[in-house]
């Protein structure tokens, strides 16, 4: 058994200089769990996680990438065709429009959802009466399924009988689901409606970890509520906000059920997003290869945005 020797201890006569330094990591191979752990136990404990991650995460990604490079016929994989599917997505007018719409949808939703969640979290963090009731009410959209939410909003904005339907106005008839711009707007609103509770909870949790003393000190220094928020609260919440942004970005890019049920991609293809195209190509037209290519493009966008947030977060910390 290897025994770690810590150089520079008091017994060896070296003078103590500053705080004690942590011991260096052991250099032995295959000693991940501890010096006294046998190699088999280390691997035995790690292997289940590796297998689960490989089966649940890595295998589907590899399978999807492989599928996207082949012709397919229903569930059968055919000839290798290289990047043809990707070239089509990135060069065809339809594919480019889907990418543009997806970006509008994701960025549009984020721009509303993050500030809204931050504002609501601040309100929920105040000592007001019925605070718990408000918290429950605000969280309610979270427990509603996307299908139900879509059907509910379809009814709400129906121009003929929906409580929020505008119908005939001095500017003409307004039907949210019959106009591509209004349909995208509605889609973003409903998307924010079902996703802001998650962001609000995370923001609220983060707010509650900020010591009250910091805000009190700023108040004593003469900072008003807005300045306290901007210069004390917000900087301390930035890591949480980046996590929220990453989570919401992944959620929005991959959203299918809501889009499919609320607009079906229409009207005039105005809400036909990458995620919907991936679903329709895969499970309605059974072009699994093209559907997988769409999924890989979505995956790439998710990685790209996630990496960008993390980079921003790191630069904030370092700066």
């Amino acid at each position: 058994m290897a025994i770690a020797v810590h150089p520079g201890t008091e017994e060896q006569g070296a003078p103590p200089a500053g705080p004690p330094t942590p011991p260096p990591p052991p250099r032995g191979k295959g000693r991940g769990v501890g010096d006294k752990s046998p190699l088999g136990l280390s691997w035995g404990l790690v292997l289940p996680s590796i297998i689960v991650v490989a089966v649940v995460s890595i295998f589907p990604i590899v399978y999807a990438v492989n599928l996207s490079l082949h012709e397919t016929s229903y569930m059968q994989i055919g000839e290798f065709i290289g990047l043809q599917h990707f070239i089509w997505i990135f060069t065809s007018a339809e594919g480019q429009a889907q990418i543009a719409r997806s970006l509008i949808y994701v960025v549009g939703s984020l721009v509303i959802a993050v500030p809204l969640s931050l504002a609501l979290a601040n309100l929920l963090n105040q000592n007001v009466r019925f605070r718990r009731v408000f918290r429950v009410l605000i969280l309610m959209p979270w427990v509603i399924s996307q299908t139900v939410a879509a059907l509910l909003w379809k009814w709400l904005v129906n121009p003929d009988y929906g409580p929020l339907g505008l119908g005939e106005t001095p500017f003409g008839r307004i039907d949210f689901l019959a106009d591509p711009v209004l349909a995208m707007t509605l889609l973003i609103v409903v998307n924010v409606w079902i996703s802001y509770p998650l962001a609000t909870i995370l923001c609220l949790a983060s707010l509650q970890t900020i010591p009250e003393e910091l805000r009190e000190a700023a108040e004593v220094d003469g900072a008003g509520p807005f300045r306290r928020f901007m210069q004390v609260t917000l900087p301390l919440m930035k890591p949480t906000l980046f996590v929220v942004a990453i989570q919401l970005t992944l959620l929005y890019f991959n959203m299918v059920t809501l889009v499919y049920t609320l607009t079906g991609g229409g009207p005039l293809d105005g809400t036909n997003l990458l995620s919907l195209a991936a679903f329709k190509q895969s499970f309605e037209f059974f072009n699994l290869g093209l559907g997988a290519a769409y999924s890989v493009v979505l995956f790439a966008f998710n990685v790209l945005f996630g990496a960008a947030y993390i980079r921003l977060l790191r630069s904030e910390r370092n700066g």
Partner: protein
Amino acid sequence: MRSGKIRNAAAAVLATTLAVSVVGCASGSGESSASGEELEMWTFLDPNSPDDPRGAALNSIVESYNEQTDGPTVTVRSINYAKLDAEVIKATASGQGPDILNVYSNQLPMHVAAQTVQPMTEYAEPVLSEMGDDFLFPVDGVTFDGEIMAMPWEIRAWLLWYREDMLEEAGVEVPQTLDELGDAAAALSETGVTGLGVGFSNAGLGADFMEKFIPFTWGNGGDILVDGEAVFDDEAGVETMNTFIEWHDQGAFGDEVLSMGADEVINGVKAGTIAMAIEGSFRVAAARAGDGVGDNLQTAPMPSSDAAQPLQTPIAGQTLTIGANATDTDAAWDFIEYYTSAQSQEEFAAAGVLPVLSTVYESEAVTSLPNADELNSWLDYIRDYGRPNPVSENFSELSDSLVTGAQQVVFQGQDPAATLERVAEEYNAQ
């Protein structure tokens, strides 16, 4: 050292257990659903639906079958019609497909190509030969490479639906020609409703729009598919698009139809927000079950440009197939034969479904129905003006592309000829 050996052994046991579990799970997922004791039937009909009388008929037929059979009993799994085909293809690929599958005749080529169904020629051929002309559904429509792949249990026609009460209130006569249909719809729209409901949305892959585009194009002397090639990008197809443009311009329907599929159109007719529509005979009974609808909903053959004769109606219908994963095909056929028997057809007729056996229309069970005359009028329409619906393996994709093109033509002013040509080219390039 001894404790180290024990730990190593424990680790090995842990890893082995996990591996066995993973393998066990994997092999478990490959088992067939067909147990031999019970057959599973997948269908879009809901046996417990309070609104759709076809569901109640299905329930009754399955219960009767299970009571009288000595073999495996049948259980029904209801799946939304928009999801059924995809679920079956995925499940069958993993060995979990149904023993008996309900397939809409338009989707049958897709299931044949996806190998989710198996031939039933050896069972069906003798029965169909015995039935002869009594069987109304064209058997060619369910035959692929000389093999009968499905047994139709229903036949359907597309009709002009109109709310008699709404037409009377607006002082509008039942239209006899397509021009009159546009004028009547425009007049009805002025009362604050949608005069003519045409589902222009991509919901249901544009099926509702296709159900109009096909007979209208036929009426203009054109066709949809010839030898698997799209041929609707001709004068007839353009004329059909021009009809829709004209109706939109004269107010027969507004932009609201962009968010409508078949379900929305039918719900609109039931709710009284749509006065007229062109929909299938198979949905009439369910629509009439709506509050205050009843006999206010009437049907007539689809008008053409000539008042003397209606448009041809596409012939399609629901079928039963033997699933590719079925192991007991004898038992599966036994149920299919029961399901398509005269006795079962009578039950479906009472639910507003057109039977596929002509003798059933003469049976006492059907002639005593309150809607017997109507069923017979639909049958006559099919006999005189029925035409097999065009089908193809990629029909869903075609339908989705065509409705998107129609949206651009009717609501964005794109050129009909160029749009149809593009859609046809994309389809033919596949």
